[in-house]
């Protein structure tokens, strides 16, 4: 029995964190968030060179054959740096195609296929959105599509819950609070699907788990910044981190975040090994990190005092990333309802 990261997994974390520290400092993220395409392209190509696209693709199809646990470590590092990346969409797609993707997966690894996700209707359909399929042709719209911008294809859920691989149609950016990532409204006008997959609970669970891992990273960054600020900022002749009121805020953040890390590892490992509890665990990891992340986002901002509220320090980029993650693929309440359903707790289940 060993519940710990392997040597390889720690190396993966170290190398990615090292890369992002140099390639994606806050200045760069600011440029990307304010529409500097060159900065975006430079970071994207740097991340592409690390070979992340094939991380969760089986070796037989040219990928690294690593599991969701490894993918969560990558997503956590991306969240820590609040870096934009297609990694989440690619990994969820690779997971959706784990039993049937021989034609598509090599293209994902090579970068010829750049995939976005149009899945939010799996958790909530509104404003007339929803995709229907008639004789293999897709019509309708999907909201808050992930990484649709710049993609060649989308993995799109239809109203039956089935998943369709389809060329990306017209996509309109949707302006959210989070400028580190672009979300889109996509409108299908009869595009033919290249591939169809049956409804699959694991796809939404994996997507939610990766969002949770992103929040874990972003929240850890906010905690680290709060602790560093509290250890340096002086008022009343002392560093503010020596006041219990401030110290306890930091302790509460750490106390909520540290067990959350173990939960992400456990849920990912459970999905990787086919543990029947994996679906519920991954789903609850999403809502759990949403709550812990929200608490840390506001508490870290408060520890920074007035500076936390300014654009100068830039803490708000993390705050907003966590805020979008909280709702993406289902609010905490929606997610918990799904966890109840997955465990057969609903009367109608």
């Amino acid at each position, binding site marked *: 029995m060993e519940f710990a990261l392997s040597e390889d997994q720690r190396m993966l974390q170290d190398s990615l964190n090292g890369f992002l520290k140099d390639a994606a400092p806050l200045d760069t993220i600011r440029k990307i968030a304010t529409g500097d395409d060159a900065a975006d392209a430079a970071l994207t190509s740097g991340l592409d060179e690390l070979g992340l696209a094939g991380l969760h693709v089986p070796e037989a199809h040219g990928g690294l054959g690593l599991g969701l646990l490894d993918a969560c470590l990558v997503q956590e590092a991306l969240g820590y740096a609040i870096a934009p990346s297609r990694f989440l969409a690619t990994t969820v797609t690779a997971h959706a195609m784990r039993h049937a993707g021989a034609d598509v997966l090599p293209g994902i690894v090579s970068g010829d296929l750049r995939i976005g996700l149009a899945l939010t209707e799996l958790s909530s359909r509104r404003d007339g959105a929803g995709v229907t399929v008639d004789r293999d042709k897709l019509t309708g719209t999907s909201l808050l599509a992930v990484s649709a911008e710049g993609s060649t294809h989308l993995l799109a859920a239809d109203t039956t819950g089935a998943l369709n691989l389809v060329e990306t149609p017209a996509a309109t950016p949707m302006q959210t609070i989070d400028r580190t990532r672009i979300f889109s409204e996509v409108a299908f006008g009869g595009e033919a699907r290249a591939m169809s997959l049956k409804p699959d609970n694991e796809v939404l669970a994996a997507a939610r788990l990766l969002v949770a891992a992103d929040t874990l990273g972003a929240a850890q960054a906010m905690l680290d910044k709060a602790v560093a600020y509290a250890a340096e900022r002086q008022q009343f002749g002392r560093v503010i981190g020596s006041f219990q009121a401030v110290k306890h805020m930091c302790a509460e953040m*750490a106390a*909520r975040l540290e067990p959350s890390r173990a939960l992400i*590892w456990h849920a990912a490992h459970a999905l990787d*090994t086919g543990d029947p509890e994996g679906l519920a665990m991954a789903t609850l990891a999403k809502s759990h990190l949403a709550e812990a992340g929200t608490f840390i986002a506001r508490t870290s901002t408060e520890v920074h005092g007035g500076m936390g509220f300014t654009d100068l320090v830039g803490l708000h980029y993390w705050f907003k990333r966590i805020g979008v993650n909280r709702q993406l693929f289902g609010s905490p309440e929606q997610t918990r309802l799904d966890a109840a359903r997955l465990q057969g707790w609903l009367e109608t289940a």
Partner: protein
Amino acid sequence: MDLSFSPEYEVFRKEVADVLSANAHLAPTSDDRGMKNPKRQAWQKLLIENGLAARTIPTEYGGYGAEPDILKSRIIAEEFAHTGLPRAMSNQGISMLVPTLLELGTPEQKAAYIRPTLYGEMVWCQGYSEPGAGSDLAALRTAAVADGDDYIINGSKIWTSTAKQADMIFCLVRTDPSAKKHEGISYILFSMETPGIEVRPLVDMTGAANFNEVFFTDVRVPKSGIVFAENKGWQVANATLTHERGMLGDPNATKARLVELVELMKRETVNGERLIDNPLLRDRLLKLQGEVYAMQANGLRITTHSLKKESAGLAGLVVKLMGCELNHEIARLAIDALGELGVMYEQGPHLRAEGTWQARYMYDLGLIIGGGTAQIQKNIIAERGLGLPREPKPAKA
């Protein structure tokens, strides 16, 4: 990441399961009350002889003498949970005094006390906290003044569990009032039969007397009861407190309570609707389930660190705070889910689960305070875990 057990351990699990099922008929029940109940003592003896209690204590002191193996301990705990049979005795003598004596006791102390303590024949109480020394334990004032080969002890202790039943006490006393507060304390063992000791039960909010006050008036005890050395009691006590904090916030116990709550909410109906079908209550239940999952996974992480003889760092420091809080929240939801009948207590035809959820709700609040308050835990997390500075001492007036 590998959550499976190797074949060696699966064989061990089978052996444990076989011993338990072969002897299940000998297990004491809730009717076998009292710390020195013969049936409980016989069960404890059986468990020790089969390596299911006192497992790593050397045989010369009455233990089973096995090498420490965290996975085997874990398997034993899982098999007890699985069968629902009563676990090995757990009291302050076994969990706190015995490890302390093994580390720091004299050969005479080890020979005299460890075996009867393990077999449930000698009961101990812990004399640490005082009315004026709670979170600031080192401010304790109970005085031990040397008189020939003896000390004369005057003062009082509070929060002393099992003082009424105890044969002996392990006690912190001030032996050098002129030294700095941490340097004048001694850790001493003496009989609760000694003249001059008065025990008064302290009734708590649950209605039970789980604790006592203990008063010492000119209590004459031999100096040979000192553990380690005179005025070195603070180091000895710190060794023991580590053992106590490890006992609070066990995630497997929390998981068991959550399972009970899920069953309650599936079984109980109000206005013909199952409690679990009430969306507000169900949402709270799932929120707590997420937290239980997190603390369980955190527990697996700590076990792995212990196996490698590494510190678990923050993962370990947060267990007492988060685990006790979570237990309290689970009890709170159970009471809210039961609604008006959730207020029933102790007896009556409409009482649910023997009133255990109200008792736990209150007792768990005691545990949030005891064993290092939640606020002290937060200081520890911030200072030892995050490296934030200690509160500066107030300037002398």
